[in-house]
């Protein structure tokens, strides 16, 4: 553990366009071993659907 060597933190992996879900912003990426990872953060505008 962990299984895969992540990219250096100063060079975050490429992601698809951020998505919105309620008050959240999602950024999806695929780890080197193929597993999915989603970063969730609160939208700056705090919008809710």
């Amino acid at each position, binding site marked *: 553990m962990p299984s895969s060597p992540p990219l250096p*933190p100063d060079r975050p992996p490429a992601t698809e366009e951020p998505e919105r879900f*309620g008050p*959240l912003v999602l950024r999806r990426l695929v780890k080197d071993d193929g597993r999915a990872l989603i*970063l969730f953060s609160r939208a700056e505008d705090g919008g809710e659907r």
Partner: protein
Amino acid sequence: VSLRRFNELRAEEVVYAVQRQDRTFLPAEDHCPLCPTRPGQPPTEIPFPSYEIVVFDNLFPSFEAPDGAAEVVVYTDDHHGSFAALAPERAQALMWVWRQRYEELAARADIAYVLIFENRGVEVGTTLHHPHGQIYGFPFVPPVAGGELAADARLGGCASCTLLGRELESGDRVVHSGDGVVAYVPFAARWPYETHVVVREHRPSLSECTAAELAALASALQAVTRGYDRLFARPFPYVMVLHQAPTDGRLAGHLHVEFYPPLRTATKLKYLAGSEQGAGTFLMDVMPEDSARALREAIADA
């Protein structure tokens, strides 16, 4: 890959996920796989120097596509935090994360039930101290969810609505009452400080909740967990499970969260022994009304 076998005598599925035998077990803090990856430090599961909430596929899955899912939900990048200690806005964001994962997993044809849960404390088998929960996408409706659907049929309607009405009428076991959410020790609790946190309106899942209800749910869950920590002046172990509608097409069920804490005193555990395991009958050392009174006071003081 997990295997399933049907246990005829118990009439239930058993899942064999033998790859989990070698999963990470209580690593030292400097080897925590859920901490951020910091410059100059060993890489972790999360390749960022900081984050708010992260969800990723479990490296040691109990279920995986195309026969279910197993995910890890990391609440914070603070290794020493807890669900109870999250800032209120972070706890509210977590409700939306749970909802997003419920909806995305519910849309998959191979998933019949989404189980969102947290195991807190070594007493309930947690293997990583970093604050986190898990999500299992079951390829079948598990027995507890099935039992709740059977209770709906037995009571001639939503069992949770019926039971909530009884608890509100009595009031003896209510430990927290918010605008949209109520928490109580159930009439027939199976753990000394078992608590159910129930949305007042009939909402089958997080998806049907208003934003205000999600905020009230976060507040109630934090009130209960802070009360737990206050109760014996120690980090209180628990299993926390969201109960929601199955995702196999039935719009049945009523969103509520159940806590199963194993402590019966500050230092003594309630064990599942002969009667519980061999007969399926729980034997309790404390009346729910008494534990509710103690927990209510602890929540007020927390």
